[in-house]
């Protein structure tokens, strides 16, 4: 067996051990408390999850919430990018947008959700909420990426009269990609958290949020834990898929630029 292979196996084993350690801690605390309503054991939660998996409602709820949250994420990504590009090219747009972005960032999620409930149907609340979470982050990061494009290369492009699309490919994309990756990484987690929170407040029928709310009302703590696990798993899977797609695109466009950046909040 070669060295990298051994290293990888060791890394996986370490991670498994860490997971096992915390499951053990959870199990021990649960045994000590001895009250399923307060803290069910990991095995009980796994059992509840297995039961849930066998119902069609479970899958429908996942589909319902995922479609909306991912839709909001996609919308945030698209509009955030478009706004950043416009703001980069027109200072007046930047001046106009900046206070809105600051507002979107500073506003408590709960206040926004309650306000949004007045404006739109609860069914679409998670779309708007995840959009509002993602868009300012994407805007700030894409703008920063554009602003960080190498000025000397841009001058070179001007002197050589390089066309817009070639300029984007050669200079802007490599500058944007690390910021874009960071924004997505932060945005994915946030949109799931905020999207589900919106569903818990708005209680749209057939959503994960509604199931979480019911589990809380009827003190079904095992189910509450199971649904939480499901949300975490979906969020991780979604992030992995997005990152995989992004890596493929960035490898094609700008080799090796897709790592090591921290997401920026709008200024």
């Amino acid at each position, binding site marked *: 067996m070669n060295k990298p292979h051994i290293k990888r196996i060791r890394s996986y084993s370490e991670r498994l051990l860490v997971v096992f350690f915390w499951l053990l801690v959870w199990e021990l605390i649960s045994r000590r408390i001895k009250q399923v309503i307060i803290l069910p054991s990991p095995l009980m939660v796994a059992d509840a999850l297995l039961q849930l998996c066998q119902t069609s409602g479970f899958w429908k709820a996942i589909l319902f919430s995922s479609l909306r949250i991912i839709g909001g994420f996609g919308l945030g990504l698209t509009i955030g990018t478009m706004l950043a590009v416009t703001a980069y090219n027109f200072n007046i747009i930047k001046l106009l947008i900046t206070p809105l972005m600051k507002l979107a960032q500073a506003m408590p999620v709960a206040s926004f959700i309650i306000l949004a409930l007045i404006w739109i149907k609860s069914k679409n609340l998670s779309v708007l909420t995840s959009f509002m979470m993602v868009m300012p982050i994407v805007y700030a990061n894409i703008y920063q990426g554009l602003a960080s494009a190498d000025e*000397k*290369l841009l*001058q*070179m492009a*001007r*002197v*050589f*009269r*390089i066309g817009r699309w*070639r300029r984007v490919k*050669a*200079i802007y994309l*490599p500058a944007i990609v690390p910021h874009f990756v960071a924004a997505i990484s932060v945005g994915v987690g946030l949109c799931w958290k905020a999207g589900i929170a919106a569903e818990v407040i708005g209680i749209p029928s057939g959503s994960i949020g509604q199931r979480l709310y019911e589990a809380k009302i009827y003190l079904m703590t095992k189910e509450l834990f199971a649904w939480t696990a499901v949300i975490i798993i979906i969020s991780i899977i979604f992030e992995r898929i997005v990152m995989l797609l992004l890596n493929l695109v960035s490898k094609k466009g*700008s*080799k*090796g*630029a897709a790592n090591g950046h921290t997401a920026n909040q709008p200024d």
Partner: protein
Amino acid sequence: MDIRLINLTKRFGDKTVLDNVNISFAEGRISCLMGPSGRGKTTVANLLMGLIKPDSGTIEGCRGKTIAAVFQEDRLIEHWDAEKNIRLVCDKSVDSEQIREELQKVGINDYKSKAVVSFSGGMRRRVALVRALMARGDIIILDEPFKGLDDAVKMQVIEYLKTKTRGKTVIVITHDRTDAALLNADLITLE
């Protein structure tokens, strides 16, 4: 038409880099702009390229002309290979074979799929030079194009430059009087 800088003044803050300068570069010839460091040679190049504006004075002979340049720094796309860097400034009719031939003329043979960031300073300089000469500019501005080249390679590059720019207006910024002599260039000194 010759390129003429007339009563040109350029200041950066309190520092006057060019003070009422009058220079003329002959059309269709190689001119070497010389002078000690800090006398504004690169500022002249940037003014000619339109990257900065003069505080006063005028530049004649550049309007409507296309410019190609080797900058003081190489200004290459670091993670791209030499061919891709050159192709960026060429029109679509230029093919890989033509680029390969040009690179070979300046002694660069092994460049396929190698990011220019991995090249030595001299190699990068030659890529920047080939890029400028393949861009088909009416005016070619070369800011210290032989920086980092050893004597043998420099001779090869000078011959390439002379052949490639015959009949074009070329402005070479250099410290070295022998470069001017080897290029058979007009000598213009910024005092």
